[in-house]
């Protein structure tokens, strides 16, 4: 594995997320990140950024989301920064995974995936921005 990082600034627009996913995969190839780890980081980042675009702003025009990925030996860290409304995903209740089909609701899947895929999540509000840090161990 090659240590390193990339910072991607992307307009708050759903069509940009495909581009972000492509960059994440290329980063993983270049840095020789184990595919299981890359898969988890790719998906978690997709969910978080999609949520910011969908729920973060009254008007997304001109808004930018910053995603930073860092690969170190033993760990991959991903940080998402946005100036959207204050939102701490760690405070969301988990969906009821035991409910029968007829009672399962459609919401809450994204954040639950992020929590399950990552080994550590930290949220802070800083300078009027949400900063979510996600850690994934590389074993």
């Amino acid at each position, binding site marked *: 594995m090659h240590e390193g990082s990339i910072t991607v600034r992307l307009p708050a627009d759903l069509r940009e997320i495909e581009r972000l*996913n492509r960059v994440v995969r290329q980063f993983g190839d270049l840095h020789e990140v184990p595919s299981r780890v890359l898969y988890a980081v790719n998906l978690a980042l997709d*969910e978080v950024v999609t949520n910011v675009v969908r729920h973060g702003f009254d008007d997304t025009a001109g808004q930018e989301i910053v995603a930073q990925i860092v690969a170190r030996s033993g760990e991959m860290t991903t940080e998402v920064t946005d100036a959207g409304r204050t939102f701490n995903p760690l405070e969301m209740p988990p969906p009821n995974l035991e409910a029968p*089909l007829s009672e399962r609701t459609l919401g809450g899947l994204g954040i639950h995936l992020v929590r399950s895929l990552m080994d550590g999540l930290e949220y802070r509000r800083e300078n009027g921005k949400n900063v979510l840090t996600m850690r994934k161990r590389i074993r």
Partner: protein
Amino acid sequence: MQIKESKQGEVLILTISEHLDSATSTVFESRLLGLVDRGERKIVIDCGSLEYVNSAGLKVFLLAAKRLEPLGGKLVLCALAPSVLMIFEMIGFTRIMKIVPSLDDALKALGGEAAPA
């Protein structure tokens, strides 16, 4: 994403491939729900070539399963890659959906015959 459709007796088979994400899930949703609306009751989704699914895609499976249930229909998923199956497990879909290893298993589960070899 690519979607292919075929029919085997009463069973409708949808084959989806590559990435089922926010951009492609709307297409998949209208296609799958459209099939339910036009009367299909036994539906197999062959995920053998599906590499990536996010929550937008997962919701489509849930929506279709929920819509089919009160109609007496059934949705069966087959051939999920290990990484995709892991995601289904994480959100508890393996409890509420029929997920089987192969297309043959899916056809058997729907009471039809296995595909000719």
